[in-house]
């Protein structure tokens, strides 16, 4: 029963008893167990990518009315393994004139910045890498390191396309950090705490899940996170028809595999973050058992990942100037408005109603949801009015001079 109750704790206690039986000091046991925990979480992330790549290919294929990989193994399950083997046995080139140290460092930094996020995510009520009290800010900080890795990947390739791609990528990533941070502040505000486990535990009923209190913030976070990862519809940065694969043109073989794995892991990480911040994380029926909490976590995050893949398979790519306009002229002001309105209303509700009771939570959710609906209505009305004032220009070709044979009566000379 002890094992079923909390497997990780059981294994940790058993291991520490074993190691102290071998005569190791307590501090050393602590260090060893921490390293083991880090090893397990990091490997879980990287191994899960193998499954995620297969899942994405199958899902995208089915949405596009085709089959997807189905040759290698049952239902094509080993396709990713075959791909990884292929990538690792490819020739590992470094372009001439490239800065070797920086060129090799960039993919490492890319994976590094994504794996660091996994240190603060709560998998269950007691399963969290390190429960930082500034967890949300830590996630923002680690995202910034990913931006640096993209930039140096593009620069060190000694390739103009790579450099241009890196500039555009960094412009997009840095721009979309702003609405992402602003919308991440909404659950922090509602939970009165920046730690991720505290945010999850503040959403303990189905009606106090932060999605009801801040649907617009959920959407903004989801959209800007998709832009942060660089997936369709924001994947201009690596579109083959536009910029020939962007900042990772010159990467082949194992280095490309690392960048590729980092991108997929990042896509899964943002779905995990969405459900942690807005949908209650590991909360669910029967979650006093950590195993059940972990199962709920996986179910919810796979649903969110399905949403990411669905969006990717359905929407077309947007142009870079449309992308930046969308961010600065729509998402950021909307995120600011939502933040201010949520802050004000939450304060008013908390002063008048005891929000610790379930009835208080329902009132709070209902009020904030109504406010979000009002904001959405006003926004759509404003956009509609503006669209009416500027009629969409239908592109009509200018009449162009048509080549005609010279008239027979016109003298050829003079």
């Amino acid at each position: 029963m002890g094992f079923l109750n909390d497997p990780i704790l059981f294994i940790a206690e058993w291991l520490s008893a074993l190691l102290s039986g071998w005569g190791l000091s307590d501090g050393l046991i602590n260090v060893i167990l921490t390293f083991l925990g880090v090893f397990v979480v990091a490997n879980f992330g990287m191994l899960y990518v193998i499954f995620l790549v297969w899942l994405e290919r199958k899902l995208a294929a089915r949405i596009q009315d085709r089959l997807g990989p189905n040759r290698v193994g049952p239902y094509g399950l080993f396709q990713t393994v075959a791909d990884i083997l292929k990538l690792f046995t490819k020739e590992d080139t470094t372009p001439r004139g490239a800065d070797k140290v920086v060129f090799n460092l960039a993919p490492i930094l890319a994976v590094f910045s994504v794996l660091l996020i996994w240190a603060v995510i709560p998998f269950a009520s007691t399963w969290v890498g390190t429960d930082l009290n500034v967890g949300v800010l830590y996630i923002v900080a680690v995202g910034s390191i990913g931006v640096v890795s993209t930039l140096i990947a593009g620069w060190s390739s000694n390739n103009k396309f790579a450099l241009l791609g890196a500039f555009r990528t960094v412009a997009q990533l840095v721009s979309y950090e702003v609405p992402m941070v602003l919308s991440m502040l909404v659950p922090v505000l509602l939970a009165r705490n920046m730690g991720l486990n505290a945010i999850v535990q503040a959403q303990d009923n189905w009606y106090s899940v932060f999605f009801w209190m801040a649907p617009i913030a959920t959407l903004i976070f989801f959209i800007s996170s998709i832009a942060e990862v660089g997936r369709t519809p924001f994947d201009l940065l690596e579109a083959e028809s536009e910029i020939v694969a962007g900042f990772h043109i010159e990467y082949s073989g194992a280095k490309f595999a690392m960048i590729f794995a980092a991108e997929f892991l990042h896509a899964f990480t943002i779905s995990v973050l969405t459900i942690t911040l807005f949908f209650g994380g590991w909360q669910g029926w029967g979650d006093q058992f950590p195993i059940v909490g972990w199962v709920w976590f996986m179910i919810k995050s796979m649903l969110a990942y399905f949403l990411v893949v669905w969006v990717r398979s359905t929407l077309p790519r947007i142009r870079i100037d449309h992308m930046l306009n969308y961010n600065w002229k729509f998402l950021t002001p909307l995120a600011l408005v939502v933040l201010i309105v949520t802050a004000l209303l939450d304060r008013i509700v908390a002063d008048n109603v005891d929000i610790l009771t379930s009835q208080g939570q329902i009132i709070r959710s209902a009020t904030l949801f109504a406010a979000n609906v009002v904001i959405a209505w006003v926004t759509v009305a404003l956009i509609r009015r503006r669209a009416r004032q500027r009629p969409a220009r239908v592109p009509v070709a200018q009449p162009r001079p048509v080549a005609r044979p010279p008239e027979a009566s016109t003298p050829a000379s003079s």
Partner: protein
Amino acid sequence: MTPVQVIFLLTSLLVLGTALMVVTAPNLVRSALWLIATLFSVAVVFVLLEASFLAVVQVVVYIGAIAIMFIFAVMLTRKVMQDTGPQTNSNWWLAAVFSLLLFAGLAWMLSTWGGFGAQAAASVPETTIVDLGQALVSPDAYILPFEVASVLLLAALIGAIVVAWDR
């Protein structure tokens, strides 16, 4: 030599080593990357000083914004891929002498101060972040410097755009 002291010595070696690479690297983009390493090491120093919030803000602001601005500026203002020629001007030895003199002077001046060898004070209270937030927005604390800093950032934002406007 307690483990914390060992960690501090390693971190300070990292800080000073990478800072020296920043000021002596001939390739300017390498110099910017060493700057990122220095900024990260300073964040580690903040963690040692139990100012975790400041450590994370250091990474977000310095590495996530300022270092990227530096790399962009370096990339936009060079004609060739590699930098050629020495990167120091003709008075570098005088600059080295001045820096050493300054360091010696600061160290000597600090050593004559009474509280120089002080040990760590009482432990940091748990609610530092809440106190920090309240100090930044409460009228009898530091709301005015906070607002002035916001206006300064706004002015810098507008000024940078205007100055770098491509006519």
